[in-house]
């Protein structure tokens, strides 16, 4: 039990330290305040509001279609990384000398 609490505390402590550092950075304007004023208000309204007509009629469909970009991004990145890994492995395994021609 103590071990569980200790580990969770450690995770939260690191996350907390990161948060505190970020807070200092934000308060000192390190990240600026890019999304200020009208543009931000506009973006927020756009984000929250007005679902397109199809998703208004079929909310589940709207949600499913809306989540698609993230699924696709993850999928593309995943496949690309696996392929890059495979390629790296194959290149590393390639023999130094050319392999003898096979057969006839």
């Amino acid at each position, binding site marked *: 039990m103590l071990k569980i609490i200790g580990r969770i505390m450690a995770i939260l402590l690191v996350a907390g330290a990161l948060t505190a550092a970020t807070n200092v950075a934000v308060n000192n304007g390190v990240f600026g305040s890019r999304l200020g004023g009208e543009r931000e208000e506009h973006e927020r309204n756009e984000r929250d509001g007005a679902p397109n007509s199809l998703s208004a009629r079929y909310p589940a469909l709207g949600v499913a279609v809306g989540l698609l970009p*993230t699924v696709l991004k993850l999928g593309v990145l995943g496949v690309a990384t696996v392929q890059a890994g495979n390629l790296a492995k194959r290149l590393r395994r390639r023999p130094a000398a050319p392999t003898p021609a096979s057969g006839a």
Partner: protein
Amino acid sequence: MVTESRKRTITTGIIDVVLLVLFIGAAEPRPTGILWHEWLGIAFGVIAVVHIYRSWDWIVATLSRVFAQQTVTTRFSLVLNILVFVSMTLAVVSGIAISREALETLGIEWLTNNAWRGLHGLSAEAAVILVGIHIAMHWKWIVNLVRRTPIAGTVEA
């Protein structure tokens, strides 16, 4: 006969699927609406702690050998996982900082600064990219898990 280690693997798999579903749900606030977005994000943060907790042995082993010889893959994974952790923490924390619904429900008021909003979008975008690579790094593990489930039809002898 299901061994202890097999049980642990399956539990890990279930937790990871939940985590992925929460993450995908949280990564697109528009279709879900902001209320769902915030709660999905908070739930994600909680389950992420469980996920890290269960990876404790790997973390300790890899960090303790950080200056020793390690494979390129392990080193890459370490750097990647640190970046995943940083981007996720920033996404959840900045999300809470700009929360409009969830925190109000809980009766908490927090600082709102526009910079947090920018940081939220930025860290979330970074997280999506890093998570894609993180999942790919464990591709073999995932394929093995799926292959060996009874549903897939190839139960181990």
